[in-house]
């Protein structure tokens, strides 16, 4: 399986990365981590990329890291479709103080527009 994980730096996207690295360690799937410009995330691109590289190293698995510019949702969908990925993985949303799950804007766009299967990590 060829997987691309979109990550903008929000807590849920970091959790999704850790979850996916665990999976990759078991399955040997091919993983690309795409750092996207998430408007809902405070950390900026370089900071996110550094953090991602660090976490991947910690897990000791093989994964490529790429930077996607422009609108994060459409950049991710286009990247996945034009490079033959089987699955897009994203963080499954933030949880409010009340406990309500709120799906992020990038995930919404990808769910509605992607022809590639989408996995939201909870």
């Amino acid at each position, binding site marked *: 399986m060829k997987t691309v994980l979109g990550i903008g730096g929000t807590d849920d996207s970091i959790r999704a990365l850790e979850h996916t690295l665990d999976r990759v360690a078991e399955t040997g799937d091919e993983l690309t981590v795409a750092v996207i410009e998430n408007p809902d995330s405070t950390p900026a691109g370089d900071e996110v990329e550094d953090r991602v590289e660090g976490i991947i190293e910690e897990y000791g698995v093989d994964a490529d890291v790429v930077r996607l510019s422009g609108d994060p949702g459409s950049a991710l969908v286009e990247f996945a479709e034009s490079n033959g990925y089987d699955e897009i993985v994203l963080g499954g949303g933030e*949880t*409010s*103080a*009340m*406990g*309500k*799950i*709120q*799906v992020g*804007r990038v995930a*919404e766009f990808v769910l509605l527009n992607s022809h590639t299967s989408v996995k939201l990590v909870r």
Partner: protein
Amino acid sequence: MNGEGITDVSGFPETPFEFDDGEGRAIEVREYDGEREALLSMYEEFDPGDRAQGIPPVRGDALERWLEGILEGVNTVAWDGNDAVGHATLVGDEGMDAHELAIFVAQSHQHAGVGSRLIRGVLSLAYDRGVRDVWLSVERWNRAAVRLYNGVGFEKTRREGFEIEMGTRLTV
């Protein structure tokens, strides 16, 4: 992006109060006062189809933990005799002045005016406790809930997605 609405709570009933619901049942709305078991029973029977964005949690331990957290906020409960049939809650966000609102009505007591009384009661109580800014999120397709929130002054505050964010400022 739109601004939050304004809710004048001075016309809202002050807890505790009683009313006859649309089915002629006598319902009392009171501030939560430790009736944890009755609320747990209500949530254990809650129709999974009426869950909103993952709450109430279905599993027992997750449900208890969730309830424990929200019961620290401002809470009102609707009672039909000894049965809790509705619950409105306001939870403060860490580092934010705004409180998040949620409201649940047992399936047996929906479409009977319980929710609209319950929400007015909790907003009035919250105002007395010093709460001013209230926000909530609601699934876009839950039109009945959006109407209810609009009816007490909430306005959309965020671009519409799967869920709508709404907010209001309480005043008298």
